[in-house]
């Protein structure tokens, strides 16, 4: 491998993530490629849903227990705390905030996504487990909103993540977000909310779009 090709690849990597060699106790040379060795390189699979009444029942449970990843990606997150406050109280609908992506099933993209946040949002989305849903708040996620000409915010979220429900507005009021949750519930109960499987099927297209704007791709292809 020529050295010229290596340099741009490694340029954005943190020092501990670069390829390096270590000499073992008996003089053996160990090649370490952290991105390959330390991370799981498997790609996601399409997980087929069950059939019939069982899937209907499970979908009902999934719809009635929406665990939201507590990640305020943009200015829409100012309306998320009121959502869990006395006046709006989303807990009534089985909506709950979880601080870790492993346990949450809903990712709320609250408004515009800066490129730096998009990278984290993708990681968070990929660390969530199938089935998972995406709610996009605000007009910024639909067509860029008032940041349509900004050099650092994406215009269309559905090119990077499969979106289940859009909630328009700048920013959407808590009532609108509650309505959005109810729309998502209907969608889950009808069995159409298979965003995770769609993502797994079209992984190449999504990855191409993502890598187009995330120039310093220093993570594995799919972040388990």
């Amino acid at each position, binding site marked *: 491998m020529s050295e010229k090709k290596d340099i741009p690849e490694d340029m954005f990597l943190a020092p501990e993530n670069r390829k390096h060699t270590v000499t073992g106790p008996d003089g053996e040379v160990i090649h370490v490629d952290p991105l390959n060795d330390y991370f799981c390189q498997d790609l996601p699979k399409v997980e087929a849903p069950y059939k019939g009444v069982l899937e209907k029942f499970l979908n009902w449970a999934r719809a009635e227990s929406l665990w939201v*990843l*507590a*990640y*305020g*990606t*943009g*200015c829409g*997150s*100012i*309306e998320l*705390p*009121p959502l*869990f*406050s*006395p*006046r709006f109280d989303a807990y009534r609908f089985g909506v709950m*905030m979880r*601080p870790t*992506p492993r346990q949450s099933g809903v990712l709320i993209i609250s408004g*515009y996504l*800066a490129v*730096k*946040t998009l990278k*984290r949002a993708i990681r*968070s989305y990929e660390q969530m487990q199938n089935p998972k849903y995406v709610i996009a708040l605000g007009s910024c996620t639909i067509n860029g909103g*008032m*940041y349509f*000409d*900004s*050099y*650092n*915010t994406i215009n269309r979220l559905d090119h990077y993540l499969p979106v289940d429900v859009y909630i328009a507005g*700048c*920013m959407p*009021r808590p009532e609108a977000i509650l309505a959005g949750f109810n729309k998502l519930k209907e969608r889950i109960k009808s069995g159409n909310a298979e965003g995770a499987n769609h993502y797994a099927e079209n992984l190449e297209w999504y990855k191409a779009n993502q890598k187009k704007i995330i120039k310093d791709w220093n993570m594995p292809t799919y972040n388990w």
Partner: protein
Amino acid sequence: MSNTIFDWKKDRSMFPEPDKDGKPVVELDSQKYIKVWQGPNHPGVTGNMALELTISGDEVMEAKTHVGYLHRGFEKLFERRRYMQCFPTSIRMCVPEPDINEYNLSRGTELLSGIEVPEMAGWLRMIALEMARLQVLLRTVPGQGGTIGLGLPAQWGLYYRELILDRFEELTGGRIYHMYILPGGVRGLLPDGFKKRLEDNLVKIEAFMKEVDRVVYSNAVFKKRTKGIGVVPPEWIDQYGATGPVARAAGYKRDVRKDYPYLYYDRLDFDYNVEHESDVFARFHVRRKDVDTTIDLLRQIMAKMPEKGELRAETPNVLHWKIPRGETLVRCESSRGEYLFYMVADGSIYPRRINLRGPSYTHGVVLLEKLLVNANISDVSSIMVSLATCPPEIER
């Protein structure tokens, strides 16, 4: 009673030696440290920003803030927008308290183009600004308890904040983004009965703050967790450009409303809220007193403001409003401290440069990094909230 048996005697031999700048030298390879990312996806950080903490045991050895997760390039976008088009964009620069952006941008435009604002509009602006301040304080004052696990008053606080948002909705039509203050004046008069309804809400909020006093302020565990934590030495205040409650908690009398009176604040009667301990508790205390001041100011404004008057001065057609070449500095007091706009006009219909400098620009980056060294990892979020870090105004 002597506490010596139970006092935690830390074995300092495990901790890194400080170098000549007082910063500990951390060698990650020595296996004594863990690197922990607090944020961007973490309930303990305010908004979307990240703290890269190197910890040894429970103690933070090195802290680094990472911002830019909310960078939208506002200052670039302003170059492409006419003065009037800047408005809807500018208010999104500080999401919790957008009105200060409206005010600063209007004031800057007026100063540069030499427009006088009618008196009535000035008083209405003050109402909007003070209501916005109250609305933020109702989040942050009980929220200080929320950072150390006392979530209940924070939840009540959100309810009372809704009351103020209701009044905003009535006055301006918007919940969060109001766009009430425009160049040349304001957008509308107070609706009928507004003063009475606001007064009702203020009474309720005062009762609620008494409750907060009981539950948070005089809580033994709260005091234990916040006293002596995150002390900002007074000599750092100027050196790091700290303003607002942080400076006032260190004993400095700094309040833009009194130092550089804008609008009609010089006609109102209020005082600096000063504390001297300069720790998390003192900053909380300053904010707690700010709530009372703000409620008092709102009452004074409602009593002193004229009943009728011009709402807007004559402005040129906003679509081809050329503003002569000039530079100006506009400041106002936000709930977090001094909020500044530096505006440069080049004589065209587009602003040449509008630069924002919010209090978080120093509180959230240099000061926070400095304060977190040797802090306990449990206190990180409480220190961060007490400095009122608001990432959107750091990165714009």
